[in-house]
């Protein structure tokens, strides 16, 4: 059971102040650190900033995911964290990325907005899967652009 891979997906509200450029700079620095930390811990995943919200998927061994999630919880750069799912998964979705950037956007993606507002319509479980899919598509698209 301990070598099982877990994935956690959450939303949070950004507390980073300033223009979208300031936000982008802050996120770049988070990612630089994240990529070296995560590699060491066997963590992969993706991060999106859109319209003042973070969406993140973190995959890895249970303990590593839990430790990293706790570190991120103590970060004052965001608040109002809500977890969509935390489950064992058969395969990683982001195995090629220690922490992929799915985008830094001024406005909230409609697809993210739909999931954010979903609690009534979607079970949280489905919302988690939906978020992973949206992030995966964005990462792929983002990669194509760079």
């Amino acid at each position, binding site marked *: 059971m301990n070598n099982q891979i*877990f994935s956690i997906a959450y939303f949070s509200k950004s507390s980073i102040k300033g223009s979208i450029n300031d936000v982008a700079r802050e996120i770049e620095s988070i990612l630089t650190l994240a990529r070296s930390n995560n590699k060491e811990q066997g963590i992969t995943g993706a991060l999106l900033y859109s319209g003042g919200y973070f969406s993140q998927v973190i995959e890895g061994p*249970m303990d590593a995911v*839990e430790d990293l999630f*706790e570190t991120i*919880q*103590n970060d004052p750069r965001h608040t109002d964290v809500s977890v969509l799912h935390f489950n064992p998964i058969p395969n990683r979705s982001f195995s090629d990325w220690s922490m992929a950037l799915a985008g830094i956007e001024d406005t909230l993606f409609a697809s993210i907005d739909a999931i954010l507002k979903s609690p009534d319509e979607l079970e949280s479980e489905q919302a988690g899967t939906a978020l992973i899919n949206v992030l995966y598509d964005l990462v792929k698209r983002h990669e194509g652009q760079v």
Partner: protein
Amino acid sequence: MGLIEMEMVDSLTGLLNRIATLSEIDELLIEEGSEPVTLVLLDIGRFRKVNDSVGIQIGDRIIRIVSKRIKNAAPEAHVLGRTSGDNFALAFKGLSQDQLDDITDKLLDFIKRPIAVGGNVIIVSLAIGIATSQPADGKDAASLFHAADIALHHAQRNKLEVTHFEPHMLELAQAAHSLENDLRVSLATHTPELHQAINNEQFSIHYQPIISSSNYAIAGFEALIRWNHPQRGWVSPGQFIPIAEEIGVIDMLGTWVMRKACKDIMQWHGPQLAEDFFISVNVSAKQFKKPALLADTINNALEESRLAPHRLHLEMTETSTFNEIPEKFFAVKETGCKLSLDDFGTGYSSLTYLHSLPFDSVKLDKSFISDLYVRDEARWSLSEKMIRAIFSLSSAIGLELIVEGIETQPQLHFLHKLGCNPMYQGYLFSRPIPTDQIPDFLSTPLHLGDLHEQPNIQHCLL
């Protein structure tokens, strides 16, 4: 780690333990300077329940995580300790109100964020009690702690997140404490023998008749506990039952009522009594948590009194935990007694309960009937619609309906016109009657006034 250090430190979190926390606060209080000391006590809500559901090991990890979050959210604390299982204390010197607000906001924000442990995601709730020492009053840590603790209890009781100590809370706490003491004395809670423990001079049961609407026979009685304290006089059950639940004597009181009520009903005879009239006894949600004990109590009371099981009805108020425990209902139902859902139409009122749990009757909440006093047409007609809907719902799924709180002829007339056949209970028929007056009550006919000569209900309401 040296011996001294070991005695000061809480081994799970590495924070100061209770004793060390208090002595550090004492240090702060006697330090030079007149700046007040603010003590923030923080309690993780329902932690025992979390511990029960995820296990102690994960519970310990949660405590460790919370302690780190506290440290992270309030690095400016002069003293930070874990004072008991799920209790933390932070002390600050010379805080402004704004700074204090900031700190409590941050504590709430960070601690309430989701915690991922052992494959679970857990969100804890918390309550915060705050007390500030006044420069001149030379308080010691223990009394500052006491004040913050009272504020914390006030927060918990009133479902608030943050409460700052105020002197009137002390009075409230003392009043509750003194009522609690009196209750303990009157119940002689140290006495092992139940029949000796309950002071029969003080505790008694009053019985309120429940009337069948089809023939106005007495269908049953609800047993209502009464406490007449030599100094306080009559103390309302609304006041002492919650305390009895809190101090763990509700099982004892409940058992006493059930045994006595079952015995009493066997003594009663009279032409007004319906065949197989029943006795209805209130059961608290706390009692229901231990269904095996409750079933034992029921079986003993039935055996002792030789009352037929179906003549004992248990009334319970809906709680949020109803649907977690369907098996418990069935365990109690096996005794053969009947179950009645009290105060229906308020609170959680889930239709699922009616459908999935083995209730035999429902009691419509008083508020529907008392709304019929109101002259406001809109509310009156809403109440009418609600009552009609509940009538037809309950009869469709084969539940008896009891309407309580009937106090006036117009209310009765209104119910009568609906053309259903519920059971009635209320002052219009009779107040709750002391046990010794029941034989008299049964030997005189019910006084109902002239029900059918109310020409127009609307007219009566105006």
